[in-house]
């Protein structure tokens, strides 16, 4: 009986549900949900703690768009995030997961800070700055190299290995900054000696903005170009598509994977180098914290597209900046903004299209 009525109802119902379904499935509607749902839920959380929802969102808005300085801060965060997201995207394209952008960036930064105040300190700007960036890439790749060695030779899971290496890098850097690398004239702060003046980027518009962002964006387009338009990219895409097929086609899968992973580490290290050459001028504890992790998530948000990662990096960067001013203005811990960022990601994961496996 039941099935009969259902069958009888079907023609008229089906038409409506298809129309509704296509509306609910449409990209604009999903995008709307990805905005409305997190903002609403975060608003409810704020209200539950007796904070003014409107005031908090106003703070968030004005900290991002309210001043040139705010925009500059967003741009700086986006610079790191674009590069660390590429560090996650590249390995993902050959079937690996690099969750170690955090450590690779930090190692790149500390390495750059050391060479910038020692062996490179006499170099003139046009030679010195490229050398500094290359140094950062070298140290980032070195740290990634340990991870990929563990994966290739010891068969360790690369995600867990790189995650654990993030924590290890934090402690190594803390040890160095509290120990041998501590600036003797730095009032006992855990920071390195300042790098030479001529090795710094200029800052513009009274903000801390520098050319780093152009390097990052150029890198994103370069990676897109390499993956989609070159012979090497074809190899990468083949491995990403089907490793066995790639193997049968005579591609040395492991070698390509290792090289791509090293390149990813180099890109994360570049983020660290830009941080030192640009904003910081020296390495200190906590500099660039969570940027590597967030970059990993920015990559996941856009399904590993290097060009779209620019957008997700700006979004996450902006919210990160908002978190800091939220702490100052409303007394909420800066980490609270992570709730909003993660709600956005969770909503995208929930309403986004199912991933092909």
């Amino acid at each position: 009986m039941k099935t009969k009525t259902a069958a009888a109802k079907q023609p008229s119902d089906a038409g409506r549900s298809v129309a509704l379904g296509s509306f609910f499935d449409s990209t604009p509607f999903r995008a709307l949900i990805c905005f409305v749902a997190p903002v609403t839920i975060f608003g409810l959380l704020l209200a539950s703690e007796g904070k003014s929802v409107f005031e908090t969102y106003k703070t968030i808005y004005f900290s991002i768009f309210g001043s040139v300085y705010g925009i500059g801060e967003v741009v700086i965060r986006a610079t790191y995030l674009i590069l660390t997201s590429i560090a996650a995207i590249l390995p993902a394209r050959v079937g690996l997961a690099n969750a170690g952008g955090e450590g690779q960036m930090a190692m790149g930064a500390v390495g750059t800070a050391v060479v910038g105040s020692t062996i490179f300190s006499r170099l003139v700007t046009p030679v010195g700055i490229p050398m500094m960036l290359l140094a950062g890439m070298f140290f980032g790749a070195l740290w990634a190299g340990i991870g990929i060695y563990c994966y290739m030779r010891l068969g360790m899971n690369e995600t867990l290995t790189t995650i654990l290496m993030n924590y290890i890098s934090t402690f190594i850097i803390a040890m160095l900054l509290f120990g041998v690398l501590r600036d003797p004239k730095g009032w006992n702060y855990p920071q390195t000696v300042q790098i030479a003046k001529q090795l710094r980027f200029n800052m513009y518009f009274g903000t801390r903005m520098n050319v780093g962002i152009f390097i990052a964006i150029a890198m994103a387009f370069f990676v897109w170009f390499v993956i989609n338009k070159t012979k090497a990219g074809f190899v990468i895409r083949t491995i990403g598509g089907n490793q066995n097929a790639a193997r049968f086609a005579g591609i040395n899968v492991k070698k390509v994977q290792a090289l791509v992973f090293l390149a990813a580490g180099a890109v994360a290290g570049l983020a660290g180098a830009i941080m030192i050459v640009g904003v910081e001028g020296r390495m200190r504890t906590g500099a660039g914290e969570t940027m590597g992790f967030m970059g990993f998530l920015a990559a996941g948000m856009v399904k590993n597209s290097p060009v779209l990662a620019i957008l997700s990096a700006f979004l996450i960067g902006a919210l990160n900046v908002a978190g800091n001013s939220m702490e100052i203005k409303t007394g909420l811990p800066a980490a609270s903004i992570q709730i909003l960022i993660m709600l956005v990601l969770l909503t995208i994961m929930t309403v986004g299209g199912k991933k092909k496996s």
Partner: protein
Amino acid sequence: MRDLTTVLACMISAGTPILYALIGDLIGERAGIISLSVEGSMLCGACIGFGTAVATHNMLFAVLSGALAGGLIGFCQAFLTIDRKSNMMASGFVLMFFAMGLTAFYGRSLLNISIGGANSAGLGKIAIPVLSKIPVLGTALFTQDILTYISYLLPLIVYFFIYKTKYGLILCSVGERPEVTLAYGYNPRLIQYGAVIMAGVLAGIGGVQMSVIYTMGWANNMVNGRGFIATALVILCSWKPQRAYLAAYLFGLAQALQIFLQVHSVPVSMYITLMLPYLLTLVALGFISSSKKPTMPEKLKIVI
């Protein structure tokens, strides 16, 4: 001799939260889902459990609330990975940061509160009559809190569940061949949900143990990667619950050593000792991965 007792006691206390998360994640991985979100579950459990303990002074409520909080994070992980087919690692990461934000947000008022001297509420250490009189081992192993005693039994219980009961076999079949589970008349999706939520619940309890009993306080991001370590240690155990003791207490020993070296002011950088647990986990992972191929659940081979 006193040193040995102290180190052993520290080893047990530091290893217990890991043991909970490890066993939880092991159950989840047996069903074919890696819960990197146990990190988030532990954080939520630690925060909510501590908050409840402060408010009610009741261990049972603290454990239940911590388990619930951890379970909710586990539910999110289950939903995202099973129904939405998200990347297990990515969703675990997102949930960890989500938990980090939530606990920083709601845990503000819990900072700088200590919960010492609340022995009457079942929070304190209980000496087991005869066993605690054993020299060295007695004080270390059998003068512990109730959650630690439960954790002694946990791997055994899970061992019997997995190897000796029908339901354990069904659980493992989901991780090996879900078609078989389905043919056998059980819903693999439901079982995966159960297993991943269980992972969250146990990790949440581990978090409660950590904040309420081990550190007796709440600090932002106090779990600091222990959930990830637990996930790595599951591989070290080769998915066998009976090996969880070894893996968890190996981590505990690394932590205990850190305190031991500090107390005796051994001239080793504090940061090396802090790094030790992570490094040890990494090295152990290297050994197990490079030796014979472990008995990995079929479904995980795609991920790992």
